C-alpha cells in the first residue's frame, strides 16, 4: 500500500572523522538514490545533522578514517545502518545501500518501478477556494470530503483517477491544482483573469451527472423520489451510467484516455449517486 511506505533516508556524512567525497561522486550517488525513491541529505561538520525524528529508517554513508561508528537512536524509533564507503566505486556503494536497506527490512515506493504509482491527486488552493462544494458533488470517486468545520478537503487521494483533471475544470474559482499536470493553471501556475473568465462558463454539473435526479433531490420532491425508485432496476442503473459516460465523453472535460480506462462497473451506482445527492443537499442546506 503506497500510504505506508516512507522513503528511507540516506545521509552522506562528510563531517569530522571522514574524508569528503568528490563532488562528481556526490552528484552521481545523490541522483541515483533519488531516482530510486530514497531521500538524501548531505551533512558536513559545518552544520548540525538535523533531527530526523520523522525518518523511520536511515542509512549513513561515509569514508570513515576509523571503523564506521555504530549509531543508535535513543528513542528506538529510528533504525539506523552505517556503512564505510572508503575505496568503493559507485556500483559497490549502491550495493551497500541495498544491503543496508535489506538489513533494515525497510521498503519504500519506487518511481518508475513496475506498476509504480504516480502521485496524482488534487491539491486545493485555499486562498482561492470559496467552499462551494462543486468538486465534491462532481467527483464520481469520493476523493473530496469535508472536515469537522464543513470545509472542503481532499480526503481520499488514492481514489483519484491518474491523469484525470476533471474536477479542476469544474471549480469556478480555479482553486484545484494537479502539480503533475502538464499545463497551467492546473499545474499550479499563477491564475490569470482570463482563466477565471473561462472557468465561469462551467458545465452544468447537475445536468451532466443525471440531470433532474440531482436537482429534484435537492428540493426533496416526493415525486422525484418515486421516479428515482423506479429507476433502481439493474437495467435502468446501467443505462444511467452509460448516459453518464457518454455525457462525460461529450463534455470533453475528462480526457478520452482516462475514460477508456474506466469501466462501467467502476462508476458509482445510481443508488450511490442518489445518496451523494442527498448528502450534498443536506450539506448545502446546513450552509444556508
Amino acid at each position, binding site marked *: 500500500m*503506497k*500510504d*505506508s*511506505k*516512507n*522513503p528511507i*533516508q540516506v545521509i552522506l556524512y562528510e563531517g569530522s572523522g571522514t574524508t569528503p567525497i568528490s*563532488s*562528481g561522486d*556526490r*552528484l552521481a550517488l*545523490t*541522483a541515483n538514490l*533519488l*531516482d*530510486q*525513491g*530514497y*531521500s*538524501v*541529505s*548531505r*551533512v*558536513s561538520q*559545518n*552544520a548540525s545533522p*538535523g*533531527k*530526523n*525524528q*520523522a*525518518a523511520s529508517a536511515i542509512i549513513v554513508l561515509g569514508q570513515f578514517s576509523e571503523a564506521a561508528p555504530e549509531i543508535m537512536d535513543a528513542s528506538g524509533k529510528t533504525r539506523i545502518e552505517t556503512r564505510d564507503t572508503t575505496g568503493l566505486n559507485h556500483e559497490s556503494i549502491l550495493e551497500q545501500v541495498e544491503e543496508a536497506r535489506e538489513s533494515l527490512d525497510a521498503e519504500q*515506493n519506487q*518511481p*518508475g518501478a513496475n506498476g*509504480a*504509482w*504516480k*502521485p*496524482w*491527486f488534487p*491539491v*486545493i*488552493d*485555499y486562498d482561492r477556494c470559496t467552499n462551494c462544494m462543486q468538486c465534491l458533488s462532481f467527483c464520481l470517486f469520493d476523493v473530496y470530503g469535508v472536515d469537522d468545520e464543513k470545509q472542503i478537503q*481532499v480526503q481520499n*487521494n488514492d481514489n483519484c483517477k491518474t491523469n484525470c483533471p476533471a474536477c479542476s475544470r469544474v471549480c469556478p474559482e480555479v482553486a484545484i*491544482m494537479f*502539480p*503533475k*499536470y*502538464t499545463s*497551467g493553471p492546473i*499545474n*499550479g*501556475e*499563477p491564475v490569470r483573469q482570463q482563466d477565471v473568465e473561462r472557468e465561469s462558463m462551467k458545465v452544468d454539473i447537475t445536468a451532466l451527472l443525471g440531470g433532474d435526479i440531482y436537482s429534484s433531490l435537492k428540493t426533496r420532491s416526493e415525486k422525484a423520489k418515486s421516479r428515482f425508485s423506479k429507476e433502481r432496476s439493474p437495467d435502468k442503473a446501467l443505462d444511467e451510467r452509460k448516459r453518464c459516460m457518454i455525457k462525460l465523453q461529450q463534455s470533453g472535460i475528462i480526457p478520452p484516455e482516462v475514460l477508456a480506462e474506466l469501466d462501467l462497473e467502476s462508476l458509482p451506482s445510481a443508488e450511490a449517486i442518489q445518496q451523494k445527492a442527498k448528502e450534498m443537499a443536506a450539506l448545502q442546506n446546513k450552509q444556508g
Partner: protein
Amino acid sequence: MSDSTDKILYCRCAFSQVVPVKTKEEVLEKLCDSGRDFECVSDLCEMSARRDDRLGELLEGDGKVKIAACYPRAVKWLFHQAGIPFPEDGSVEVLNMREDTAETISKGLLDE
C-alpha cells in the same frame, strides 16, 4: 542573502517527471559542487500524498529554507494538504525549476 544556517531542499520530481530533466540535473550538479549541506527528496508530491511527517522537519531550522521544486503555489498547498503549515513570513522561498533556468535557480539557492 543566505548563509550556512539556511536550509536547501531539492525536489527531484522522480515519480512523474514534470520538471525538465536538464534543469534538475544542472541544479543538482551545482548543489553538489558547492560544498553546502542539503536535503534532497525524491518527490514532494509523493510525500504529500502520504502526509509524510518528514515534510514538517524539512521546513524547520534557524535560517531561511530554500526549496528548488516547481510552482510556488503548488508547493505551498502540497505542504498544507499534508497538514504542514507553510510559513507566510518569507522564511521559505520556492524556486521554480519548471519555469526558470538552472542558473537562476542555483543562484537563488546558493547565493550567500
